[in-house]
């Protein structure tokens, strides 16, 4: 081992851009970090995550960065001959071609607004992202569909794992307590549909999860909150 090598951070430490994470060549720069000479520095604001010899940063803030295979909630913003343009709640819009819109065959020259009209929301999957951030999405596949009714709530994309919970524990508890249909898109859009007052309850709860996402025992806290609001005892996370 090189005697000069030194790790300067511990696991789960908040670092700012330019902060030195390690000296020497024993560690490797992972995602969110970079090497300058014999130092590894933070390339963004984030939380350190040490994976063997590799130093990584978990992002804590920022806009959604489109990734292949993510399931997102998109909005139709334009219709062309060949398909639909979908807003992804990121810096880049996506393209959905006719063949990816529906499991049934769409005739050439058909009226595309019959399938998706301007302003419609849909649950879609990202099939491809290029280096120039051209995005292809598809609405063909299990669980992918057009959204009818309900409401779409915007949250930080970095809080999405909190809203879903471990193995979906949080979102299934929300569904159980409210009786609403809920779909959480990786891009930070959440679709809720059910009784109007229950929809509002879900929205309030999601805001609470966002605000308190850092606290320990969050699922238990949210369970107590939901029990108090609905007056129904919940059978624990399913």
């Amino acid at each position: 081992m090189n005697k000069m090598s030194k790790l300067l951070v511990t696991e789960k430490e908040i670092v700012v851009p330019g902060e030195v994470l390690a000296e020497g060549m024993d560690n490797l720069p992972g995602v969110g970090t970079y090497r300058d000479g014999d130092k590894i520095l933070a390339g963004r604001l984030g939380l350190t995550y040490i994976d063997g010899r590799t130093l990584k940063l978990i992002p804590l803030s920022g806009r959604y960065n489109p990734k292949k295979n993510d399931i997102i909630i998109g909005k139709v913003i334009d219709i062309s001959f060949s398909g639909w343009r979908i807003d992804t709640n990121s810096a880049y819009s996506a393209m959905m071609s006719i063949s990816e819109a529906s499991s049934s065959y769409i005739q050439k020259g058909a009226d595309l607004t019959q399938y998706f009209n301007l302003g419609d929301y849909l649950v879609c999957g990202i099939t491809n992202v290029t280096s120039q951030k051209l995005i292809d999405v598809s609405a063909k596949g299990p669980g992918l569909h057009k959204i009818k009714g309900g409401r779409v709530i915007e949250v930080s994309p970095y809080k999405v794992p909190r809203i879903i919970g471990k193995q979906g524990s949080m979102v299934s508890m929300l569904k159980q307590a409210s009786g609403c249909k809920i779909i959480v898109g990786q891009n930070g859009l959440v679709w809720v549909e059910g009784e109007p007052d229950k929809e509002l309850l879900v929205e309030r709860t999601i805001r609470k999860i966002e605000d308190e996402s850092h606290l320990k025992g969050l699922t238990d806290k949210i369970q107590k909150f939901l029990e108090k609001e609905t007056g129904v005892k919940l059978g624990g996370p399913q």
Partner: protein
Amino acid sequence: MSYKKRLDGRGFEEFRKVEAKVGVIKRADGSAYFKFGNTWAYAAVYGPRNLYPRFLQDPSKGILRCNYNMMPFSSSGERVRPGGSRRSKEISMVTAKALLPVLNLEEYPNSVVDVFIELPETEAGSRTAGINAAAMALADAGLLMKDLVSSVSVGRVDDKILVDLDYSEESYEDGPVADIPIAIMPSSGKITLLQMDGLVSKEQLSKAIEMGKNACQKIYEIQKKALKEKYNNVKGDAE
């Protein structure tokens, strides 16, 4: 007569009272304010986001737009006419150029990052306060960047070299004055902004730059602390 003691009693290497906070504008992707005494700069960052008109798009990298704006009631003298001026346009440009070297904009092709710097209160050193706030807001917005940017003005009043001139020193009449705003990337120590207004000798200038670099390191610590303060409560967040 020489300038023996600073008009407000500070040490020559001491800046005015500094205050910094991150996450002050809810709807922005990143935001911060930074205060140098009575100079108060807010910065809000939006983006990366779609860029229109389309001819401005650059397929090789994202672009950075900065907007520096003094609010009409911000000055201690006359009302500042709202809207852009020749001065604000120049400061917007030098601010963008001071921030560009730290940003990895090639990760955001065809998009734009907008930085709005608003000053509700000003009393000299406004561009440096703006740059400090903007650097914190950019980090808060989760952008990929190599470093922060820290900035302070240094200068010469009569025969003394000093840090962070206030208005009374900028307008000192019993001797020559030079005002030198500088910005550095604190980890590497490289300079990203250096301007000068007034009269200064070569020796005085190099001494002033050294003092400025030292002061910027102190500013960097304040920026770092403010950023960590906002995120400290999310420590248990990642599984």
